[in-house]
């Protein structure tokens, strides 16, 4: 899946990291992206939102997508500019159907040990899209404090 046209960046704008399916490698990728946010002076609130969505996407990919298999890999693509952040996380698993994930805020699901990551990604990002099989997620965060430097296409 290519970057959605509505996200307003080109394929060539994206940096790609291929990392082992390990939490430490995921943290290092996350720290690299967070440094970019800091460089562009993203607000504390915006940084929290992006860190949360990225953490959820990476955790889902490692645990559920790649089933904690250290022989598998993750692909992370990102773009950070003053007005927007685009993130992509892809695992080597067989995917899932987002519509099958139960609503974690339903009374009967409030105490379930998992199932909240997807809702958090949607709540904290401007747009979230999965590929057809569900092993690749694209996320967009618009920095509302910055004038758009590029018209979404």
């Amino acid at each position, binding site marked *: 899946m290519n970057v959605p046209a509505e996200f307003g960046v080109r394929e060539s704008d994206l940096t790609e990291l291929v990392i082992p399916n390990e939490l430490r490698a995921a*943290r290092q990728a996350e*720290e690299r992206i967070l440094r970019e946010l800091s460089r562009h002076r993203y607000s504390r609130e915006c940084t929290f939102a992006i860190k*949360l969505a990225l953490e*959820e996407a990476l955790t889902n990919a490692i645990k559920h997508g790649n089933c904690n298999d250290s022989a598998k890999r993750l692909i992370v693509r990102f773009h950070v500019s003053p007005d927007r952040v685009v993130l992509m996380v892809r695992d080597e698993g067989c995917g899932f159907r987002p519509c099958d994930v139960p609503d974690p805020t339903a009374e009967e699901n409030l105490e379930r040990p998992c199932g*909240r990551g997807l809702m958090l990604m949607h709540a904290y990002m401007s747009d979230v899209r999965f590929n057809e099989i569900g092993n690749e997620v694209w996320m967009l965060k618009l920095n509302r404090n910055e004038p758009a430097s590029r018209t979404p296409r």
Partner: protein
Amino acid sequence: MTRTFGWKAERRERVTVISLRGAMTLEALAPVREELLHCLTSEAPDLVFDLTALDFIASDGLGALLAACRRTRELGGRARLAAPTPLVRQVFTLLRLDRVMPICNSVEDALHSLRSN
């Protein structure tokens, strides 16, 4: 925002107060998940999570707090959250977890709430 995760537990009469600090990520949580549960005892079954210094929490951290809350109920106790930052509080309220673990403005308020109910 990216302070190292840490925690400590102390007894306040019948209440176990667990103070969390830093970023509660899956990587930080993995080695201490079981320890969090083991510090809950029937001598101090009520539980307060002091979130004053917690900068960040994601769904795995929430799962760990819920597990502690369940353990507390098994021991006959009740759980409260105390003093989350606005960003952390929003995560709990968005997911309606404040219905499972009521949020108090301070540790003292949480202790008072447990004493008075």
